[in-house]
C-alpha cells in the first residue's frame, strides 16, 4: 500500500503540472487569437483554430483539478486509498481495458488530435479529418469497453 501511496502522490504532482501547463496554454491561445485586428471577417477556420485548442486545454485543466482533489482525498483516508488500489488493480477491469485497446487507443487518439491542431493552420479539411478520426477511435474504444463490461 506504501508503493500505491507513492503512485498516487506522483499522479497528483503530474496532474498539478499538467493543470498549470493547460491553463497557461489556454490563456495564451485565447489571448493570441482574441487580440487580432478588429474589423476582419471571422471565418469558421479562425474560430476553430482559436476555440478548439482553448476548449481542450480548459477541459484538461478541469480533469487535472478533479484528479488532484481525488488523490488528496485518497491520501487522507486509508479506506479510499484501498478502494482506489482495488479499482486500479482489478483483473476484470484490466481485461476489459485491454480488449478495448487501452492505453494505445488513447495515445494514438491524442497524437491524432495534436496533429489535427497543428494542421489547422495549413489545411482545415485535413485537420478536421484527423480530429474526427481521433473521436471515432475513442468512441469505438468506449463501445468495446461498454460491451465487454456487460459480457464479462
Amino acid at each position, binding site marked *: 500500500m506504501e508503493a500505491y501511496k507513492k503512485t498516487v502522490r506522483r499522479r497528483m504532482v503530474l496532474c498539478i503540472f499538467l493543470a498549470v501547463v493547460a491553463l497557461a496554454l489556454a490563456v495564451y491561445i485565447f489571448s493570441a487569437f482574441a487580440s487580432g485586428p478588429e474589423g476582419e471577417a471571422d471565418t469558421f477556420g479562425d474560430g476553430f483554430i482559436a476555440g478548439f485548442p482553448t476548449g481542450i486545454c480548459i477541459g484538461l485543466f478541469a480533469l487535472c483539478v478533479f484528479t488532484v482533489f481525488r488523490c488528496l482525498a485518497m491520501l487522507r483516508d486509508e479506506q479510499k486509498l484501498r*478502494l482506489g488500489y482495488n479499482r486500479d*488493480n482489478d483483473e*476484470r477491469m484490466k481485461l476489459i481495458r485491454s480488449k478495448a485497446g487501452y492505453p494505445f487507443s488513447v495515445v494514438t487518439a491524442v497524437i491524432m488530435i495534436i496533429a489535427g491542431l497543428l494542421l489547422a493552420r495549413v489545411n482545415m479539411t485535413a485537420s478536421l479529418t484527423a480530429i474526427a478520426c481521433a473521436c471515432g477511435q475513442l468512441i469505438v474504444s468506449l463501445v468495446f469497453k461498454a460491451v*465487454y463490461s456487460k459480457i*464479462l
Partner: protein
Amino acid sequence: MQSVLDINCKAYYTIFAKLTLQKGGGQHLKTKIKELRRQRKLSQDELAFAVGTTRQTITSIETGKYTASLPLAYKIARYFALSIEEVFDFSEFDNEMGGK
C-alpha cells in the same frame, strides 16, 4: 413501441455477437460464493474490499460471467477459510476428464 429494426438488432446481438465475443472466454465456473456470503451476512462490497477487487467483479464471478484468476480464487477461498474446490464447482471438468 420498438421498431422492427430494433428487434432485429437485438436478436442479431443476442445470437451472434455475444457468442462470438464470449468464444475465447472458455468455460465459466459455477461458484458457491453467493451462499457463503449469505451465510456470513456479507455484502458484495465487503467481500470485494477484503479480497482486493471490485463489487462488479464479485457480481460477475457469482453469475458465472467471469472466471476468477487463480490468485483471486485463492484469496476468496482463504477469506472463507475453505479450499478452492469447496468454493468453486469443478464438477464439469471432472465429468470432462471422465471423473478421474
